């Protein structure tokens, strides 16, 4: 078990900066998820921990050791790849025992090896498939073989690069739970890369949200959801995504509730934080914190027209046009019926409105 620390780590591929001055402390035994859109550099960051990419600058430590120049096999880490990367010509058993056989440092005697392989296979429910080749397994089973190969060596750190993305939705949900369970049992540091916020939210102790090679925010899932540090995090996390609308802050005094003037009306908000009256800002409102009512009782609300209604069974998403922007309202299914084309007023829970600087995109309240 080990902590992992990035200290101003940068990775360049020629002129492309894939990872830009990363600084991140991953605690011993923590389940850390690196979350970000495609191409943001999360795989590259993970591969640097593995030693599969050289570090252009900065310092990477695993435990007490600076590992910048330590080859992968001496790092005592295990990795699960998106494609699983199983040896197609070897049986499941040989795949699982591969790190114990190939790595001189991890080498153990034959009985111990068999014991560990069977233990790992048992843990992941693979005992009956040990003699098969990966080609004769289902996607989920292959994924578990990859996991077994990772746990059999008892590494300091587990690295996983989108390990669930090749599974169907149901299996993914199930495996998510199994991974959390595995983490709890092993107590080892997990670094997990994904672009799927649900995976991040459900599994992580902490999430590092990454965009364009930079860390945008690090925090517990709930914190990141409730207090996104900037517009990128705000819009990346949450589904449907957070509504945003441009406005000007009005009449905020130290304690009184403030309001924001938008093109389509005034919205009541909570504490404006550091923002000064008269400044332009971006309001962020999660769909569940936005409410649609009849247009007559409209103080502190904006005018909107219903464009579409998506029924999801347990809830519905009402998509409205507000001037030139679009806002989504999330409602329980038993809310009063609405019709497409109907005019409505939208008002927000004042305490749940997020304010962002339109230029720096940083959070203001």
């Amino acid at each position, binding site marked *: 078990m080990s902590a992992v620390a990035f200290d101003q780590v940068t990775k360049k591929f020629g002129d492309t900066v894939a990872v830009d001055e990363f600084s991140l402390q991953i605690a011993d035994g923590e389940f850390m998820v690196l979350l970000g859109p*495609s*191409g943001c550099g999360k795989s590259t960051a993970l*591969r640097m921990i*593995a*030693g*599969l990419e050289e570090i252009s600058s900065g310092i990477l430590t695993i435990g007490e050791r600076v590992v910048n120049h330590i080859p*992968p*096999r001496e790092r005592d*880490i*295990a*990795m699960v*790849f*998106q*494609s*699983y*990367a*199983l*040896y*197609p*010509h070897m049986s499941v058993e040989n795949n699982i025992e*591969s*790190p114990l056989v*190939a*790595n*001189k*440092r*991890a080498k153990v005697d034959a009985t111990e090896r068999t014991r560990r392989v069977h233990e790992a296979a048992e843990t992941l429910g693979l005992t009956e498939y040990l003699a098969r*080749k*990966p*080609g004769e397994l289902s*996607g989920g089973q*292959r994924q578990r073989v990859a996991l077994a*190969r990772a746990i059999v060596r008892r590494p300091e750190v587990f690295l996983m690069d*989108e390990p669930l*993305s*090749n599974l169907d939705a149901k299996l993914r949900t199930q495996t998510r739970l199994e991974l959390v369970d595995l983490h709890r049992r092993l107590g080892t540091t997990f670094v997990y890369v994904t*672009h799927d916020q649900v995976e991040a939210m459900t599994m992580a102790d902490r999430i590092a949200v990454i965009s364009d090679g930079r860390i945008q925010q690090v925090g517990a899932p709930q914190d990141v959801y409730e207090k996104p540090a900037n517009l990128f995090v705000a819009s990346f996390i949450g589904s449907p995504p957070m509504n945003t609308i441009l406005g000007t802050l009005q009449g905020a005094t130290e304690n009184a509730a403030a309001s924001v003037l938008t093109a389509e009306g005034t919205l009541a908000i909570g504490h404006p934080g550091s923002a000064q009256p008269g400044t332009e800002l971006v309001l962020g409102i999660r769909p569940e914190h936005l409410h649609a009512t009849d247009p007559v009782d409209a103080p502190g609300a904006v005018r909107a027209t219903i464009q579409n209604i998506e029924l999801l069974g347990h809830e519905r998403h009402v998509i409205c046009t507000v001037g030139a922007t679009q806002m989504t309202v999330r409602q329980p299914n038993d809310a009063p019926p609405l019709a497409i084309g109907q005019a409505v007023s939208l008002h927000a829970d004042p305490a749940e409105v997020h304010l962002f600087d339109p230029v720096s995109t940083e959070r203001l309240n």
Partner: protein
Amino acid sequence: MATDPTVSAANEQNRLNQTAEKIVDPLVPAPYDNDKAVQSPRSGLRNAVATTTTYLVLTALSVIVLFPIYMLLLRALSSPLKYISAGQPLYPVSIEWDVFNRAFGQASLGRSMGLSFVVTFVIVIAQVLTSVLAAYAFAFLEFPLKKLAFVLVIGTLLLPIEVTLIANVEIIRKLHLLNSVPGLTFPFLVTAIGIFLIRQGFLGIPRDLRDASELDGYGHLRFLFKVAMPMSKAIIGSFIVIAFLGAWNQYVWPRFATDRGAWQTVQVALRTIGSENPGELNLGFAAAIVASLPLLALLIFFQRQIVRGLTAGAVKG
């Protein structure tokens, strides 16, 4: 990067599974897979007529292909002088089954067959070894002047033995290697085609798998023998088969790298066996049959590899 990561990764693993198991190059499906043939529906009578016509055409073509072989068998088995005096008919005349025995005895066919086997095995084994090693260097190692080395390898495609024949004969002569197994094999211990083919096979191993093996702690040699070679065994197998074909069938080099009958490979020996005495003409024909048997066996047992090999590289038979 532009494709859906899920799809591309799924393909990756599929490809990965294929690579080691009985894959066939997408370009070269199973040679005789009849399920794919297309026929348009026809009425019963027209269908019957068409089928009959097809069989007639196929039979006619078979006769064209087989007639020379039939003539070879006929001439090998018939007693030469009696056959000629019978007016060279299309049926055997006074069959001599012991012609094969005599070919081995009188014409020392055994020795030249043996030499051919030795030469072929040396060449095939050496070519596989040198090709695998060189291919590994090109596929998995970084080193200075890599591009130049690769150009030098590919450049030898411009220098087949036919081009360099006379200079090579002089070189072998100066090395005192005329009439020797080294002399017969040295110029063929390496082949650009083998390096090229096997390198392609190695490059087909997915990057994730290479990374995984690196994390697992594989060193170069272990990776080569436990991962790279097993995963490329289809390509290596095809290469072995076509290398055998090429080495066994060689004529020009063994013809000029030897000047003594005892060092003639079987292909070269075919030129002279039975040609001195008209009464022994059939020995030469029998020898030609014997010389083809190893390849016939290859054709029967390694059909798939032959097809893949012949399609993959320009190797003449």
